[in-house]
């Protein structure tokens, strides 16, 4: 029944997951460029963002068309609204990857702090894991798994605070001060990627329960 | 601002309307009673008079001067033949005309409107006029003579307008959506008429035709006029002289001997039975086709 609606919804979800794959690739690339101070790779990451933006726009258009034509209700409507928000969060994540790549380019040649680089490595892995969990739990409509993102986000947040402390610690060294300041922004970008993943988890909960709620309060 | 509660006095009591209704109902019953009582009286009178004489003698003997031995065989046979010929003539002509008028004729043409007007009028013409017509044009005019065939033809003319009207009603009753559906599939006008319209209209046509025929076999005046003989003892043939049951009845009632009047009553019962049989056939046909679909 309602073959066209179901097909359209299936295609939208497939597109979202494809966008998720693109974001993961962008993240990998940005992290790799950061770790190896690879400016060429960073350029590639920046150029790659166009692909993500194209997908983002295509999904936006599809959603507009679907809402106008199919007038979905109940779970179908929540699915479309959830996809609308997830689309936005994914695009923002990709933008943060671009920011990281740009910062990598900016600090080319500067001496790196090993502790921070290790921290970023960990934060990067955590962020990647969160994106996967977020998308998988969305596909599975698994609210419990989506809620587990809160704990993962907690880890990134702690790592972010440690990174800031580390930068404060090395700020005495003039040569590494600028590098440190830039790296705070990188850390912030990774932390924000984690937040967006949690937001995706909240959309999963909304889709399933019909209720929109923040997983944690602002004091966190 | 408060909402007033609705008036919940449900006892009613509008007496004027009620009495009008009751008077109306009573007058309906009265009309029904008049009809039934009159008819009932007639039937009872005839049946009590003649039922004793409805026997094999009546059915198989030719008429004779002796009431004991008199029968109405030639008349019964002739009425039967007339009925069959009537159906054979009126149905094709009547249905054909109806199809032409309903499906093919352009209503704006003057000759079609004239045709319609004539058919309406002819249905109301008294039967004796048809008798005169038959005498002038069929018996004498083209020289057919006073034969069964002429009688059948005259009765055909008498009954044709009714059959045409009944067939038209039946054809009109076929919904336009059926025609549209058939046309849309690529059927020609002929195919639509023959395969959809007519089959759907058959119950109505059959009912109308049989009712018209059952009225016609009771017609006396035109047959007398064209010379249905008063006394034949041989079995009638289509090309030969004839008499019919109504005529036979009429003649028996004219005879002085009261026993013949009883015989006439008996013959009336036979005629009534034939008419009832035909009507029953019409009802059966209608129900059979309606039940199917």
């Amino acid at each position: 029944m309602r073959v066209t609606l179901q097909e359209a919804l299936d295609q939208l979800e497939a597109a979202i997951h494809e966008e998720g794959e693109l974001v993961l690739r962008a993240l990998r690339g940005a992290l790799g460029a950061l770790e190896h101070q690879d400016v060429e790779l960073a350029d590639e990451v920046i150029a790659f963002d166009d692909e993500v933006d194209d997908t983002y726009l295509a999904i936006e258009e599809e959603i507009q068309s679907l809402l106008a034509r199919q007038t979905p209700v109940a779970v179908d409507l929540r699915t479309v609204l959830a996809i609308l928000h997830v689309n936005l969060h994914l695009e923002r994540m990709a933008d943060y990857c671009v920011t990281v790549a740009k910062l990598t380019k900016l600090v080319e040649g500067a001496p790196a702090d090993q502790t921070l680089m290790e921290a970023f490595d960990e934060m990067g892995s955590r962020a990647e894991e969160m994106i996967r969990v977020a998308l998988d739990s969305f596909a599975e409509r698994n609210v419990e798994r989506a809620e587990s993102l809160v704990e993962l986000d907690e880890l990134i947040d702690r790592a972010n605070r440690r990174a800031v402390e580390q930068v404060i610690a090395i700020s005495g060294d003039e040569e590494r001060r600028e590098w440190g300041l830039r790296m705070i922004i990188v850390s912030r970008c990774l932390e924000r990627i984690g937040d967006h993943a949690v937001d995706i988890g909240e959309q999963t909960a909304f889709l399933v329960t019909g209720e929109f709620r923040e997983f944690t309060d602002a004091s966190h | 601002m408060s909402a007033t509660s609705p008036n919940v006095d449900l006892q009613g009591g509008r007496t004027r309307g009620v009495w009008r209704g009751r008077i109306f109902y009573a007058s309906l019953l009265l009309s029904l009673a008049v009809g039934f009582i009159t008819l009932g009286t007639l039937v009872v009178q005839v049946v009590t008079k003649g039922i004793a004489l409805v026997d094999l003698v009546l059915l198989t003997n030719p008429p004779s001067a002796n009431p004991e031995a008199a029968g109405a065989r030639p008349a019964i046979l002739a009425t039967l033949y007339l009925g069959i010929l009537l159906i054979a003539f009126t149905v094709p002509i009547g249905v054909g005309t109806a199809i032409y008028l309903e499906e093919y004729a352009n209503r704006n043409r003057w000759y079609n409107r004239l045709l319609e007007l004539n058919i309406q009028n002819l249905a109301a013409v008294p039967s004796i006029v048809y008798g005169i017509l038959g005498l002038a044009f069929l018996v004498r005019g083209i020289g057919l003579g006073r034969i069964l065939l002429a009688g059948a033809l005259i009765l055909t003319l008498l009954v044709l307008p009714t059959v045409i009207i009944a067939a038209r009603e039946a054809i009109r009753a076929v919904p336009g959506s059926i025609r549209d559906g058939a046309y849309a599939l690529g059927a020609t006008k002929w195919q639509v008429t023959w395969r959809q319209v007519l089959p759907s209209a058959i119950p109505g046509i059959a009912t109308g035709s049989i009712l018209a025929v059952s009225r016609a076999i009771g017609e006396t005046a035109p047959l007398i006029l064209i010379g249905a003989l008063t006394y034949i003892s041989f079995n009638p043939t289509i090309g030969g002289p004839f008499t019919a049951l109504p005529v036979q009845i009429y003649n028996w009632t004219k005879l002085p001997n009261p026993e013949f009047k009883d015989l006439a009553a008996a013959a009336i019962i036979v005629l009534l039975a034939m008419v009832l049989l035909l009507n029953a056939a019409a009802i059966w046909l209608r129900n059979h086709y309606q039940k199917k679909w």
Partner: protein
Amino acid sequence: MVTMANAETELVRMRGVDQLDLAEREGRMPPPESRDVVFDVTDLNVRYGSLPALKDVSIRVYKNFVTAFIGPSGCGKSTFIRCFNRMNDLIPIAVVEGSVRYHGEDLYGPRVDPVEVRKRIGMVFQKPNPFPKSIYDNVAFGPRVLGMTDGLDERVEKALGQAALWDEVKDRLKDSALSLSGGQQQRLCIARCLAVEPDVLLMDEPASALDPIATTRIEDLMHDLKQNYTIVIVTHNMQQAARIADMTAFFSVEISDEGKNRTGILVEYDTTPKIFTQPSDKRTEDYVTGRFG
């Protein structure tokens, strides 16, 4: 060394739907301009006697598309769709002026046989109109009148299958078509059309007399049928057009002569997403947003 090119990620498989190639997704439907044209209408004017019904309509209907005509009542959409299979011929006072080309051939050419036209261009009506015959005979009617009598059983089964009705009626083909529900009857009418292997299916408000479940089934059916047929549908339910049509044409009424003349005109014709997300004409927008008509 990690590069963009080899940053492999695991494929996500969700619910059996493969990842779609972005290019394929964007090119899901080739633009209308590159499609085959089935009907090419130029400057079509239709009037009933002296009353104009449609004015200066020009439109192209594309192959294997569902094309919907929407608009307020009285805007001539039904009149227009009936031009495609020459059903307006059955209305004596209807006059069709202008050009309607079917695969390049003039539908109203002097030597064109309407029966041939309707063989290729079938029509389903608003109120289901099954013939008062068996289910089998309904579907077989078209082939029979068109002389396609070989392999009749297979034809009937195939048509009923295409209309998603076979499973429900395969054990009772001899039953009366009138014993089916409304939705089933309409699918039967669709099967009836499909049995003569048309090229185009015209549907004049096919679901307006049906309940929502039956309506959804008809809509799903159209989605399947358009793989093999070109479908044109008139609907007063614009949400239905939004759901199922690839192209949508919005008709409206033009009032002239101080309100005495109401004529139908084509206001806008475009892909359905465009009509319902960003119509070019304000009248279209007023109509689809429900602010008018």
